[in-house]
């Protein structure tokens, strides 16, 4: 049985379609209900919906053999897993944003509001910049407006939220997209099934390019 952790939401639904196309369909997943686990015994596969930022934990700890999650989560939590495919979906970028009139005074400690403390810490360490991280869990864009922070480090998709709040991207840190991740131990014992899924998904990604 292959256990697959999918991120709740639009991305997860798209990814499920790719798995179904690869021959691992599970029609019950399309029913509109509140169930969390869906199984197709015939295809030897089980899917579950989890919070996107938790997918890597399910995979690292072996509750799921494989999963799909954003590169942002992998960079932030650095789980010990195999990252075997870039699905080229859910594309966005990790960026530093600030108010349009922001002036970066390098003589001062930079106050950075973010959900991604590890990514922010590493990025500014690579630039030898002294920062004060303010860990927030949501509405990051509010921080510079209320002068809680100088800048934010966050995911930027279209930039609409930033524009509407008079903020703009100052520096891009890294491009982000969804990745197929695998538990290291599962990879040793379910190699053939995992390779089958990965190669079919790879073909689909390449066909979409």
């Amino acid at each position, binding site marked *: 049985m292959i256990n697959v952790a999918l991120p709740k939401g639009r991305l997860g639904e798209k990814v499920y379609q790719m798995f179904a196309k690869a021959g691992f369909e599970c029609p019950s997943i399309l029913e509109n209900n509140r169930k969390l686990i869906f199984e197709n015994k015939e295809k030897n596969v089980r899917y579950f919906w989890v919070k996107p930022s938790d997918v890597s934990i399910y995979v690292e700890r072996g509750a799921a053999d494989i999963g799909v999650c954003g590169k942002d989560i992998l960079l932030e939590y650095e789980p010990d897993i195999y990252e*075997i495919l870039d699905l080229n979906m859910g594309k966005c970028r990790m960026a530093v944003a600030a108010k349009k009139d922001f002036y970066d005074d390098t003589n001062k400690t930079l106050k950075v509001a973010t959900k991604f403390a590890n990514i922010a810490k590493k990025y500014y360490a690579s630039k030898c910049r002294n920062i004060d991280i303010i860990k927030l869990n949501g509405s990051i864009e509010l921080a510079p407006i209320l002068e809680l922070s100088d800048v934010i480090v966050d995911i930027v998709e279209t930039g609409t939220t930033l524009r509407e709040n008079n903020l703009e991207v100052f520096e891009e840190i890294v491009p982000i997209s969804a990745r197929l991740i695998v538990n290291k131990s599962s990879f040793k014992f379910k190699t053939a099934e995992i390779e089958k899924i990965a190669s079919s998904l790879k073909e689909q990604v390449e066909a979409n390019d």
Partner: protein
Amino acid sequence: MINERYLKNEERVIYTLRSLYDSYGYLPFTMSKFEEYELYVKNKDFLVSDGVITFTDTNGKLLALKPDVTLSIIKNGQDEKGVKQKVYYSENVYRISGSTRQFKEIMQTGLECIGDIDLYDVFEVVTLACASLEAISENYVVEISHLGVLSSLLDCASSNDEFKNAVMECIKQKNAHEIKKLCKEYGIKEDKANLLCSFVGIYGKADSVLKKLDELNVSDDFASSVNELKAIVALLDSTKYKDKIQLDFSIVNDMNYYNGIVFNGFIEGVCETVLFGGKYDGLLDKLGRQSKGIGFAIYIDLLEEMGGQSRSYDVDVLVLYDKTDAKTLSEVVASYISKGQSVTTQKEIPERIRYKELVDLRGGKIND
């Protein structure tokens, strides 16, 4: 006489492994829980986790709860030609766990072979790693890599250390797409970039992997590392562990300490790597020793995950009594114990207790 019923899986494993290592002439090694912190500061990168739990002793010297066993074993010892020191251990190590920053006590069993080691010793240690996992479960895999193969491959692509470290990180994650991006970023020639990306896909049964490696014409260093790998695989081919062995180059250890053969072990049903091992001549060199060394450690704690050993009952028999005289009670208890059953005596049934049989002695007689 040990009653198997009371032996936890981990305890049974440790006992079996002791006799296995002993039969190959490895001597037991017991060490102190504490070690001078300085030893770990000097060899920080050798440690698996960067968190060391420290405290000061009564003289103000900074000590650490030992986060690693190998360093304590190899820091002393004599280097003599033709001689080897072979030891095994079962020890707790103390680390700070990555994300939650909690203190963790981890039980490890393993062995070290230090001295004038040769191909046979490498073979013996890898064989013992296989035998150890076999003693735990029949569904296991030992994957072997050669760090020389990896480093010579990286050397042929670029001399930039930053690039090489980033690629190594990708190889560890079987991440070919990121290698492609890195090669573009660092201006690596297309043929070399393709070589690095395709290398990620080389893993599995030894025969097929070695065949693929032969097809790659990288460098003389690469070929000589492949030959070392072939020599060890040839020896393992004649053992019963042949089918359990795979080659996989995603094992990436710090090359300042490790060199040559490195290996990991997995057990079906345990989500993390259970066994870590490899040759660490670099570490010995840093400690000023001329010897070479190889060893491995098994994370015994992880075996709890295998399941199948949790108790479904707290006790076989619950004896309920009130004014029953102590003599009668003791006779009833003794009668069940002599039948090999476990007994608890209570005046009231404790909440949540699980028992197989209830014996009600209230009122001084056996009630139905």
